[in-house]
């Protein structure tokens, strides 16, 4: 891919970049800075007191449980990335290569599954996963012992919910990458004697990397922010970072703490992504060296 150098004197370029940059500066950068500023404040009577001290940061760094939750969040996010990608890939691949006829219908069905409110669907999952829910009811009628599955209000329940809500992202990004691969390249690999599986790993998978990576990134960042699933399907007994931040912010009305935890979460997320990026980009993904 050819990389174009652009100068800020080029009006067309400015017209492409400036609106987004302005929106983000005006409505995101300022709130972000406000968040950063908040971390140096304290509260009294549920009102902010402008103090500029490090009280909150001392608390954040002295209480290990914040870090336990952050670590748990990152671990859950990584597991979720792996699971969603593993589930999404075959489906995206099938959609791109096999199910040409029903592609549109399947896509519409998937999209509409996501138009239903997430809270509602999570509630639906409770009805399914509960000890005396639909899943166990079906299993019992199939001859399994009663109350066989005990998934509700466990971290597994949380994970089911997260995978459920996020798997569509990698599925679509991977699909986008897959449909662009020139079929001749796969033929060339078969021709060279590669089995279908080998071709997949040598050609299809590397060439679908842009979709794979971006899907993974989306799942990762969204998992970092997951709050509904741990709270509802996880039974609130092993909260993740977002719930921690929500509690600090709402229940405790301790905004500086919530802000500081947010900064910690952003930093951890950014560091993780940066590490993965350097690792992933060591090998170029479309055959052009990163310029």
């Amino acid at each position: 891919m050819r990389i174009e150098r652009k100068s800020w004197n080029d009006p067309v370029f400015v017209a492409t970049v400036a609106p987004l940059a302005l929106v983000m500066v005006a409505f995101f950068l300022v709130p972000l800075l406000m968040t950063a500023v908040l971390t140096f404040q304290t509260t009294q009577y549920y009102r902010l007191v402008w103090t500029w001290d490090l009280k909150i940061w001392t608390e954040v760094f002295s209480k290990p449980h914040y870090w336990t939750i952050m670590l748990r969040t990152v671990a859950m996010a990584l597991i979720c990335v792996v699971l969603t990608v593993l589930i999404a890939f075959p489906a995206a691949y099938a959609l791109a290569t096999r199910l040409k006829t029903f592609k549109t219908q399947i896509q519409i069905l998937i999209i509409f599954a996501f138009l239903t409110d997430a809270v509602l669907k999570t509630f639906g999952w409770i009805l399914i996963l509960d000890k005396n829910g639909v899943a166990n009811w079906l299993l019992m009628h199939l001859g399994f012992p009663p109350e066989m599955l005990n998934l509700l209000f466990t971290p597994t329940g949380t994970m089911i919910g997260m995978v459920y809500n996020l798997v569509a992202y990698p599925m679509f990004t991977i699909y986008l990458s897959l449909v662009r691969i020139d079929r001749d390249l796969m033929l060339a690999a078969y021709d060279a004697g590669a089995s279908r599986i080998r071709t997949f790993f040598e050609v299809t998978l590397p060439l679908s990397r842009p979709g794979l990576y971006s899907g993974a990134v989306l799942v990762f960042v969204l998992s970092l922010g997951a709050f509904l699933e741990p709270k509802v399907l996880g039974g609130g007994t092993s909260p993740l970072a977002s719930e921690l931040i929500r509690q600090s912010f709402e229940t405790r009305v301790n905004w500086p703490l919530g802000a500081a935890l947010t900064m910690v979460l952003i930093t951890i997320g950014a560091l993780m992504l940066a590490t993965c990026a350097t690792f992933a980009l060591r090998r170029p993904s479309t055959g052009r060296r990163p310029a």
Partner: protein
Amino acid sequence: MMSQRMRNALVDTTLVGSVVLLLVFFYAPIATLVAFSFTSSRVLTLPIEGFSLQWYGELFNKPDFLPAVLNSAAVATISTLFATVLGTAGAVAWVRYRFRLQGVFRGLTFAPLLFPQLLLGVVMLLWFSVLGSWLGFSTGLVTVIIGHVVYITPFALVVVAVQVYGFDETLEDAARDAGASGWEVFREITFPLLWPGIFSAAIFSFLLSWGNFYVSYSLAGTARTLPIFVYSGIAVGSSPIYPALATVNLVPALLLVIVAEVLRRRALKRQASSIATS
């Protein structure tokens, strides 16, 4: 050892099966909700007692239901438009351009992804109330849209970037060579070739906006969107009107699936006849 053909059949079955299973997975909770929406009991326990349509009546009788749907639709449509346009421009700038301050630009357009949305809503509300007291406006649908655009654009950007990556720019060269201006190159070549990505980004944007609760809740003032309607209802104990809502949601999906199938059949027929006559 398995024969090659059997192995291929196995792979095919696995692949197609994975899509089927995924659809089952996606629709399992929805189907459950649909089943429970016809219960005559108020409490959602198995086995389902009786059959009634009363919850559908109650749903539509809720005075804030239809306004919430309309608000959601308006917010999602407008946010999608902005997020997709900005995200597309951003994706091109991310992947294909090199410019001064690009690192800053990338950071600024990516960071909202990492920002927990419930906090994003509150901090933006903080900022809007400062702005509002300077400029004399209150929060409402417009601030919701701005919030959604900030929150969603990075998603659109990432999705479009997949399509921008590895874009064959000799095609753009060819168009330029044919005398196309920058805009014409975009309209005729870049845009159509990026379209699958842009379209997916638009869909994701719409879904994200449509389903967003926290940003909307913080910034909506007294306006209500569908998720706010659901949330505030469910928080104090749900009745089967919410499962009924899930069912109502499905109707347009099924209609669209049918329309797509009809269109496909018709296109096939047209193609066949045009080949026959030529």
